[in-house]
């Protein structure tokens, strides 16, 4: 990019701006919509400038929710989402760290076989196994519980695979030095492997958190008790109000609140996130 022709710059920028606008416009609409009064949407035209009802919409959503549509207060749904996303993230990270540790550092029969079994499940999205999983969770009596929301989503082939790849780049001599230094397997894991994986863990934390937060189909299936509604599926409940038109201004307030936590996580962990995905040298 050493050329300095003003036209090519202009074109490049126009394309970029168009791209950004394409992504940002719906978000803008959602924010604008969440500041309108109840009647605005029914007029048929979409307002493009913010209205004056922001505070009352958000307060209404946060405190009481849409009881007519069977949706609890957004505050509670956000907490539910947070609990579920954190449980999934922490669970995924711990399980995949441990299983990658086992696969890389221990010699046991069918080691490669187990690795490939884990690897194959990479190709199966949650939706494929959702009916049998639902059956299992229902039989175990875990419907309408945080355990039911998070446990079935905890197994993670992707994270196991990534950690395995990382562990294999850790020099073997480190393990041997640790053995000579009197560290058993778990001590080695805790004192040496974990600190070396911090950036990878941070990167996966971000990915997994957003994955957990954005879960929609699974919570929709297994929660019938509003106490366990998560925000992402709660929005769906709000829009299918049985009696009358959806209250779009309130729904949009919920949407904005739902979108906020992932953005915050990325903002705060961005530095580690980028480092963990790009840095190969330790």
């Amino acid at each position: 990019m050493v050329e300095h022709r003003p036209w090519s710059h202009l074109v490049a920028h126009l394309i970029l701006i168009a791209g950004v606008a394409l992504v940002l416009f719906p978000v803008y609409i959602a924010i604008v919509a969440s500041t309108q009064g109840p009647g605005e949407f029914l007029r048929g035209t979409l307002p493009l400038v913010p209205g004056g009802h922001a505070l009352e919409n958000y307060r209404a959503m946060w405190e009481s929710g849409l009881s007519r549509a069977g949706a609890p207060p957004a505050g509670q749904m956000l907490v539910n989402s947070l609990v579920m996303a954190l449980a999934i993230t922490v669970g995924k990270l711990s399980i995949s760290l441990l299983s990658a540790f086992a696969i890389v550092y221990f010699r046991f029969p069918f080691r490669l076989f187990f690795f490939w079994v884990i690897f194959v499940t990479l190709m199966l999205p949650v939706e494929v196994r959702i009916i049998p999983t639902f059956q299992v969770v229902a039989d175990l009596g875990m419907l309408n519980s945080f355990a039911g929301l998070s446990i079935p989503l905890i197994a993670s082939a992707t994270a196991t695979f990534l950690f395995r790849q990382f562990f294999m780049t850790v020099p073997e001599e480190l393990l041997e030095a640790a053995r000579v230094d009197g560290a058993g397997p778990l001590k080695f894991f805790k004192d040496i492997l974990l600190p070396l994986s911090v950036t990878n863990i941070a990167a996966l934390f971000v990915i997994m958190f957003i994955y957990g937060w954005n879960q929609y189909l699974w919570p929709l299936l297994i929660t019938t008790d509003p106490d366990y509604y998560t925000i992402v599926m709660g929005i769906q409940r709000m829009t299918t109000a049985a009696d009358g038109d959806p209250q779009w201004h309130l729904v949009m307030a919920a949407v904005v609140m739902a979108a906020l936590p992932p953005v915050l996580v990325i903002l705060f962990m961005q530095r580690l996130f980028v480092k963990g995905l790009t840095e190969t040298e330790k």
Partner: protein
Amino acid sequence: MASIKLAGLKKTYAGGVQAVKGIDLAVADGEFVVLVGPSGCGKSTLLRMVAGLETISEGQLEIGGRRVNELEPAQRDIAMVFQNYALYPHMTVFDNLAYGLKNRGFKGDEIRRRVEEAARMLEIEAFLPRKPRQLSGGQRQRVAMGRALVREPAAFLFDEPLSNLDAKLRVQMRVEIKQLQRRLKTTSLYVTHDQLEAMTLGDRLVVLNGGRIEQVGTPMEIYARPATLFVATFIGSPAMNLVPLAYLRERGNGLLGDLPEGTDLIGIRPDDLRLEAPEAPHLMVEATLELFEAAGAESHLYVRLAGSDQPTVIRTAGQPPVAEGEMLRFYVTRDALHPFHRESGRRTDDPNRQAAA
């Protein structure tokens, strides 16, 4: 401090490959023994068996009179220095040194005392708060040695610790390792493929080839009287010249009548071929100078023996007035001949007799 005893040690890998084929060796308390051999001779495997990083397929290993075959590395009371240092990258130098002590349940002030003492000995005190990545190769090597020192183990095991350093630093660290070992008098096993390192460091050398011991002895014993053809050509640089006995006889050289039975190959060190005739009984060979290599204090003469295409190297002090392509005469004293039997690869006279010189 302890002695190390290896009895019939063997290592067979799962595929049936035998890397170590029966090693018997006794390392005395406080001795510095160097295992030397070409790559793939099993020397590193042997050291790792002593360390406990490789299982022992057969035989018995004793450290300090105690059978340790089945013990974990940490229980064997040894410390190891690795070729690529193997420092924990996320810990400071201090924590690297302290880690082994912490795992053994030492108290904080005892750890501090020992780490500081080791750091003082190795002159790495200034680096204690740094991370390994902020150190140079030589400094990292010192830290790796410090990690072994603080433990005050029964034995040090060195696995080619100097191979990753540049030539100058290697010589310097070699001297330091030797001095350190003299001072601490800790039993040490040292693996290297560098015969010069082996010669200069060890109280005794163990020359390994193909998973077996070729010869054990002090560096000078091995240099003066190599027991096998392999040792003869492996120890010493440039390597020993091997000339068929028949060739020397044909050239009208006398003095070869009293060689032991079975001798058919004569080894001559490059230093033992001289340009001037010595007074002692000697032989003479003629050769054409093909390449003259001046190396400062000494010169290497690459020649071909007259009437044969046998390449031969001569090392001589200074720079003799010779020209490439010239026919030269070289003299070698009778005492400097090493008689070998080609087929068995063994020395034909008694390898244990002291060299005459």
